């Protein structure tokens, strides 16, 4: 081997720089690797990344006002919403032109329902105006005609809402998700009785923590047993652990209904044994208890599996060594065994927590009103109220919450400490 001096470029036999030759040789390998993962990559891009980007976009997007009422939006730029007076005739002329087109294309009702999220009553205002606009005198003046048609056109608030939501992008959905709203005096919290999302977020976090903790308490001993048993019996136990994966989620959840309801198996049994009286039947379903019980059951394997895979790698000689050094059973467990299972606890807890924070079907079925999660509200906005923007904003907040937790977790436990298998 000849030694190479600093700065001298290594070359191959025919004089090409070594790095170039190497890159060329590796390129084919890289292309092949890329081709192998391409189907999955495309799938993930289309079904995962794209919808999320779309959701992020929808949570701030607000093109509908400008698209439906283009001239009005331009005309409104001159108007000062704090002036306390309704805009002048020019704006009403623009509104008439825009509404005539919108009614033709039947887009005015959509705009009405969109703005109704911000101020109730606007939906009917637009519908009424749509019906009446054909009867208006095309020569104007329009201001009086509009106010005659519906006196709401004569109030400053209506125009404030229109002006506030005329930009293409709006923080309105996010403010809504934070139980806040934009008023003439800036951003304010909603009246107390209308705040629900922050409370729902809080409940979702609290119930997810409760579910994670109960999964840990129930799963830890089972995972330990699994790792300590001889292979044959541990395989059988593992099948039992995985059994929940093999039954339909709906069936399992319904089974909990049968067990937990007030006329259900558990209550009947307790009454029969005399532990509780017939009048004092426990309410265990359609509330938070039901959600915690059913979700702990469903998510338990996600706690057990990472714990098990970590515990399996812990040689029994550690505990033996601890005992030979004079530690009793508890000390040997707490000082020697338990610390080595923390990566498994971390992995299981993160997994269960993140899964439960976004869970939908089980809280929907057994949560009643007090046991539902933020995701149930998101689903409501996506499929019932059709307020996709708010649904998207709530979803985005949920995503951010998970990411923040992830970062916090990484800071405290370290993500490379997490072992899944």
């Amino acid at each position, binding site marked *: 081997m000849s030694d190479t001096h600093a700065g001298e470029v290594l070359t191959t036999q025919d004089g090409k720089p070594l790095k170039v030759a190497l890159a060329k040789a590796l390129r084919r390998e890289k292309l092949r690797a890329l081709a192998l993962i391409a189907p999955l990559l495309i799938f993930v891009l289309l079904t995962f990344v794209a919808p999320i980007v779309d959701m992020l976009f929808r949570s701030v997007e607000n093109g509908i006002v400008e698209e439906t009422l283009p001239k009005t939006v331009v005309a409104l730029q001159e108007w000062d919403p704090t002036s306390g007076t309704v805009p002048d005739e020019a704006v009403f002329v623009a509104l008439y032109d825009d509404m005539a087109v919108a009614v033709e294309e039947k887009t005015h009702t959509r705009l009405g329902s969109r703005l109704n999220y911000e101020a109730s009553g606007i939906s009917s205002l637009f519908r009424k105006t749509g019906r009446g606009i054909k009867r208006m005198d095309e020569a104007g003046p329009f201001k009086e005609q509009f106010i005659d048609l519906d006196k709401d056109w004569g109030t400053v608030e209506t125009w404030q809402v229109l002006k506030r939501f005329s930009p293409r992008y709006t923080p309105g959905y996010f403010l809504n998700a934070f139980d806040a709203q934009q008023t003439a005096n800036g951003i304010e919290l909603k009246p107390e009785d209308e705040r629900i999302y922050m409370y729902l977020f809080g409940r979702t976090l609290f119930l997810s923590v409760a579910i994670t903790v109960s999964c840990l308490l129930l799963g830890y001993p089972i995972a330990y047993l699994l790792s300590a048993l001889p292979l044959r019996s541990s395989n059988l136990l593992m099948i039992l652990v995985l059994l929940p994966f093999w039954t339909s989620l709906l069936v399992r959840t319904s089974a909990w209904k049968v067990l937990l309801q007030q006329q259900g198996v558990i209550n009947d049994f307790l009454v029969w044994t005399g532990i509780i009286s017939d009048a004092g039947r426990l309410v265990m379903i359609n509330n938070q208890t039901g959600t915690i019980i059913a979700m702990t059951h469903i998510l338990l394997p996600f706690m057990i599996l990472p714990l098990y895979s970590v515990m399996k790698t812990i*040689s029994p*000689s*550690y505990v*033996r*060594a*601890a*005992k*030979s*050094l*004079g*530690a*009793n059973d508890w*000390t*040997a467990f707490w*000082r*020697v065994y338990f*610390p*080595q299972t923390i990566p498994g606890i971390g992995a299981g807890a993160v997994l269960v927590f993140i899964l439960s924070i976004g869970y939908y079907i089980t809280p929907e079925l057994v949560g009643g009103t007090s046991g539902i999660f933020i995701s149930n509200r998101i689903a409501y906005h996506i499929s019932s109220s059709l307020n996709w923007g708010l649904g998207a904003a709530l979803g985005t907040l949920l995503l951010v919450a998970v990411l923040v937790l992830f970062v916090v977790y990484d800071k405290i436990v370290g993500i490379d400490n997490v072992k899944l298998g």
Partner: protein
Amino acid sequence: MANTRGAAVKYDSVQKSYDGETLVVKNLNLDIPPGEFLTMLGPSGSGKTTCLMMLAGFEPATHGEIYLNDRPINNVPPHKRGIGMVFQNYALFPHMTVAENLAFPLQVRGVGKAEQQDKVKRALEMVELGAFGNRRPAQLSGGQQQRVAVARALVFDPELVLMDEPLGALDKQLREQMQYEIKHIHENLGVTVVYVTHDQTEALTMSDRVAVFNDGVIQQLSTPDDLYEDPQNSFVAQFIGENNKLNGKVVEINGSECLVEIDDGTKLKADKVNVAAVGDRTTLSLRPERVEFDTVDTMDNLVNGRIEELIYLGDHIRVRMNVGGNDEFIVKVRNRGEKRKLAVGETVRVGWALNDCKALDAVV
């Protein structure tokens, strides 16, 4: 041992079965005096670890009693036995530093902080790792981890230390160095050591006495030189050192000597060790370095053999011969720089003394 502070160990008719069908340890009787370095040597699966685990308290004896300083300990839990232990994979706690590992046995005994630090420091210095207290076990080399494991087993001043193949994972050179270090520590501290290995060199160099295990039974319990010079049966002769076997039948017995007719008809004189009566099958055992080529006329046994192969090893030459129908007969010839050349295919006379040739139980 000048300053003995070791414990006495006694196995009394100990039997062990894991499955209720086979005995892994069959009627073990063993007396270990204070301060002794006793090695359990044997092939894989012979029950060495099981014996150690019963002593440490991790496996219950199926039958019999184990005594520590004349106190029966079958019902004493492991953490109250006060026995230091070095595991094959060291079992250093990965989430603690070296110093924390060493402090662990002191902490659980409620030793004061200052004394803990003092003892940990001394233990680390004993194994020459004074500067490594703040490292994690994963940041140490295999040999260093091994030393930490030894230090940890000794730091709480146990009277008895068990070591289960502690050097198994080290390379040859490091293993030899550690053998001496462990031996010196034993000599300095005077603790009783029960050591398990399947490496016979290790057993011979380190031990006061060696118990050779096979199939759950102690085949022989003696000092290293006795084991080599006076094997009591064919298993021990075969397991310890190199050994030539010649199968035959006893034709005559005179006191401590006997005459054996080996399978090709040659009659050889041998030391009667493990044969009962005339007519019994026997296996003669003979060390390769006790066989001579020249000046053989005066020897007790003389036979002709054909040279099959010569292997030059520097300080000696290994000669593979066919003697008495056994073509795996090895002779070690010291390299004295002589002119005499051995050649493959040549037939030569070899001889050996009666005392070097042991008549043992027959192997098939």
